[in-house]
């Protein structure tokens, strides 16, 4: 890296320097990225497409790990009741979990950030209305709100995403508003207002970029919580449909087989889920530490 580049990338390099002081955080980042890649390339990586009924054979159902199927297929982690290869089921489950969590996160990010910026920028009635709703909502546990929403919407992929987004927007809104209120009083925003720039331009071009760092922290925490939440809802039978299972649903399906000793059907998806959430949490934890000046060493 040339000196010029280093100067240009200054804050990022500095950030990385601090970030990488925690080995656990680096591990978290690496494994989060690896898992996302695994999920994204599931069709390429998996030994089997667990949703393609022509590839799955129920004759190979409930095989323990390290077995071979009727047509010579090898099952490293065994199969579930329908004869799905557990390795493939876990990778595709990961994909489903990420799809839901990332979509919901993106939706919540857009809605929450927009409302938060609007609240901070206009203040007054709009502000107190938006923030009061967010506040009331946040006084209830997320699982309860998501549960109620799904009880009302019905089940399904789209509805789960919507419910999770509706649960999470408030966290973004509150964070953005907090940061934006501080920014708003700074000179450059005052200048923009004097110049009579359109509101949306001030909001999205000038205010938004400056409130990004705290948003990053929230996004990490919320991603982990969305994955857990989706898994829990699916476990309760209120989330995704059984035909395209996420990790949570795989675990739920395996529950029936737990007492009869076929533990692999729920054990491996559970390990995968734990691994994902821990990785993201390690990453988010470090981000939070770095953004909290009191804890910075």
């Amino acid at each position, binding site marked *: 890296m040339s000196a010029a580049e280093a100067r240009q990338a200054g804050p990022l390099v500095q950030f990385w320097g601090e970030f990488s002081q925690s080995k656990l955080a680096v591990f978290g980042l690496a494994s989060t990225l690896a898992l996302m890649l695994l999920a994204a390339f599931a069709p390429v990586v998996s030994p089997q497409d667990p949703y393609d009924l022509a590839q799955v054979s129920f004759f190979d159902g409930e095989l323990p790990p390290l077995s071979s199927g009727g047509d010579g297929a090898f099952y490293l982690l065994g199969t579930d009741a329908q004869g799905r290869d557990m390795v493939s089921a876990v990778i595709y489950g990961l994909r489903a979990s990420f799809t839901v969590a990332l979509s919901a996160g993106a939706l919540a990010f857009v809605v929450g950030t927009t409302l938060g910026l609007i609240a901070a920028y206009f203040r007054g009635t709009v502000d107190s209305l938006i923030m009061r709703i967010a506040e009331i909502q946040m006084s209830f546990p997320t699982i309860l709100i998501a549960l109620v929403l799904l009880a009302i919407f019905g089940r399904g992929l789209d509805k789960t995403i919507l419910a999770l987004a509706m649960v999470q927007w408030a966290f973004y809104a509150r964070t953005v508003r907090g940061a934006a209120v501080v920014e708003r009083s700074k000179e450059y925003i005052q200048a923009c207002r004097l110049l009579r720039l359109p509101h949306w331009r001030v909001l999205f071009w000038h205010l938004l970029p400056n409130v990004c760092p705290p948003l990053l922290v929230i996004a990490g925490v919320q991603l982990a919580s969305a994955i857990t939440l989706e898994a829990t809802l699916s476990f309760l*039978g209120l989330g995704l449909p059984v035909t395209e299972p996420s990790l949570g649903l795989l675990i*739920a399906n395996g529950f029936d087989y737990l007492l009869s000793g076929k533990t692999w059907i729920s054990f491996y998806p*559970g390990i995968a889920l*734990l691994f994902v959430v821990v990785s993201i949490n390690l990453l988010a934890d470090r981000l939070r530490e770095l953004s909290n000046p009191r804890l910075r060493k």
Partner: protein
Amino acid sequence: MLEVVFRRLVQAVGVVLVLTVVSFVGVFKIGDPIALLAHENATELEIEEARQRLGLDDPIHVQYLNYLGRMAVGDFGNSFVSRRPVVDVIAERLPATIELTLAAFLISVLLGIPLGIAAGLKPESAAAQSIMAGSIIGFSLPTFWFGMMLIMVFSVSLGWLPSIGRGDTVELLGMHWAILSADGWKHLLMPALMLSLTTVSLIIRLVASGMREILLMEYVKFARLKGLHEFRVVMLHAFKNVLIPVVTVLGLEIGSLLAGSIVTETVFAYPGVGKLLIDSINRLDRPVIITYLTLIVLFFVVINLIVDLIYTLLDPRARGTIR
């Protein structure tokens, strides 16, 4: 003070109203409770009659206003499924959930605070590091899977603890309590452990980081320099200041535990109100769903209010900031 209480109550009524409207309409968009209850050979006429008997033939807004009118005078109606008063149905299940939540709360406090102090005192030690790592795992572990693994180890493999239900109960004050029997305790242990998992981790992290911050402060450093006994420093100075956020969070955590009991009760087939909610959602038993949610909203408003008031008492700086 009174104004705060009043404002919170108005807020609660607002939330309840929104909730009832949305769930009234929503539950019916999903499916038809009569279709579930009717015998499979029932004729159209019989189904129509049943619908009339449950008052489901009126337009939805008429049904809603009727329901609201009755609710205003404390009549929450009858369950669609059993036709018993909803209040009875919930009251019957309440002791189980109260026991479970309280047991989990106790575990959280008794495990979380000492471990948190230990981890915060000497953050660099191996013990502290592993406590913190454990808390991250505990925080990340999906509780339902944790519960299943408990069952796998303690029920399936070792055969020590029963995996389902509530065990024997003893009647007291017209309600049935399992904590009054040894069998009940055996049944309660694993569910309570599962339910407390997240809260324990949260409290460990909160106490530990609070301790770390406060031990860096001048007056604590000074107290240490003065040669005060380590234990005394921790207890008197540091811990008192850590207590404020912990009490707040603990209060709020009672709410989370109550919500978490829905999942716990499903895993352990524990007959509490959480399981009742899930069953009622599956049976589209609207009166039970709405009553449960209304009660839980009121409960949360009260909890939040109490937490805020305690917070004001503990930390005079916060006075006047409650809305």
